């Protein structure tokens, strides 16, 4: 016996509710403050571990391996397309007029990455130019 045979919605007692909290207000955190301040000034802020030298993008307050506080730095190395995908429908399943290319952009010699909308001939490994410093980044393939 299954529900679709015995369950008639209009014959059941139903309460329709939304779940739990109505909204959330998040803080960007200590490292997030630096990162977003950088974006406003058209800079990519990362952080460097003083012990192992690892560089994180976006900035992180601490090195996940050495577990010590990092130092915030400007990222100057080359941004490139690490991988990408093409979106054909929006979050509600409606077909997009024009497919949207979304790439994971990484910076040479750093850890981490940022999501970006891509203009131009997308290809893995290609260098990009950052057109707009926001979330997501808008980049153009060089």
């Amino acid at each position, binding site marked *: 016996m299954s529900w679709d045979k015995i369950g008639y919605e209009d014959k059941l007692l139903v309460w329709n*509710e939304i779940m739990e909290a109505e909204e*959330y207000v998040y803080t960007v955190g200590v*490292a997030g403050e630096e990162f977003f301040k950088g974006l406003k000034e058209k800079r990519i802020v990362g952080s460097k571990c003083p012990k192992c030298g690892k560089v994180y993008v976006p900035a992180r307050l601490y090195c996940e391996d050495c577990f010590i506080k990092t130092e915030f730095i400007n990222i100057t190395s080359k941004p490139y397309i690490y991988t990408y995908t093409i979106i054909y429908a929006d979050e509600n399943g409606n077909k997009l007029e024009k497919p949207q290319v979304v790439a994971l952009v990484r910076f040479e010699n750093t850890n981490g990455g940022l999501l970006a909308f891509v203009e131009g001939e997308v290809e893995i490994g290609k260098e990009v130019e950052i057109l707009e410093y926001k979330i997501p980044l808008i980049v153009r393939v060089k």
Partner: protein
Amino acid sequence: MKSNLYFRRVAVIGAGLTLFRRRLLETPQELAWEASRKALDEAGLDLKDIDCVVIGSAPDAFDGVHMKGEYLAHGSGGIRRMVTRVFVGGATGVMVPITAWYHVASGLCQKVLAVAEEKMSPARPHPQSVFRYIWDPITEKPLNPNLIWIFAMEMHRYMYVNKISKEEIALVSVKNKRNALNNPYAQAAGNITVDDVLKSEILVWPVQLLDTSPVSDGAAAMVIVSEDIARRYTDTPVWIEGVGWALDNTEWTGRELTYPRYLEYAARMAYKMAAIERPSKEIDVIEPYDPFDYKELHHIEGLMIAKRGEAPKLLKEGVFDIDGDIPSSPSGGLLGVGNPIAAAGLMKTISIYWQLKGTAGKMQVKKPVHTGLAQAWGDLMQASTVIVMRN
């Protein structure tokens, strides 16, 4: 008489706390890291020395980050390590060191980092709203209750059966907020009077604003290790000698609300393990869970440190003061320090650890202490966790 259980000895050798505050700038991961870093520093260990990580947090819905165990693992040193997340509602904070304890007691791990974090601020309009769906959907939910409703009913029943006045209960808030003045991490410390409590805003009668703990963000961490490691890294280890946890009937409307039976079960388990026969004589300092002032009294009775209905009398006599026979919540408790749910319970455990180590600073109780106890409570008012430690 000690129970004939077979397990390895387990010690605490380091602990760390963040400030407890409303709307901290730090992300949950950053809070977890800060507490963990301090705990490792106090222990003299580095992250590379840690075998496994135990993470405690209450519902994901508080921080608003789903699968929060995984999310917090980043700031808790869990990457490329064994990670366990535990959750028993408000009882989680003490379940964290208990879980770390059995990782070590079993011989599975030698060095465990135990972390608890909660950020209550993000949920709007109020963190209470994340509890909207813990109720029976047919018989309770239509009234749109919140947790304070049922605490108010429990408080009223406790007062009625034991003939306890609001004045007697308010003394807990006065004591704990005063103790918190000595605690550098505290959010809600202050010199208040019984009158202040009685004149504060009525939330859900008989619960008034100063009967309750505040909304808080914060994190806590502990380093819990085997006997070998403890001896190598410190001359003053604090031993975990008894642990206990229990769940009473989850149907709260059918449960005895006057007396916390869930706690008596958990306490008996911990006392048996720690060979404690007369808790009121053998335990020197306690941190019972106090999100509301009446709960500290309720819990002192459930811990069998006072007879049923007699905790208020002992409180009035000063037994639970910082210079009393059995100082209770010398940290300031949740009422004084704040209440980031899981972190609050671990904060209580850390408070006892620092008392037994003798490093509690201005919070240090006046008398010499040998045996201490921390306790937490939660879920639908029926889950409890107890830890007994000795120096």
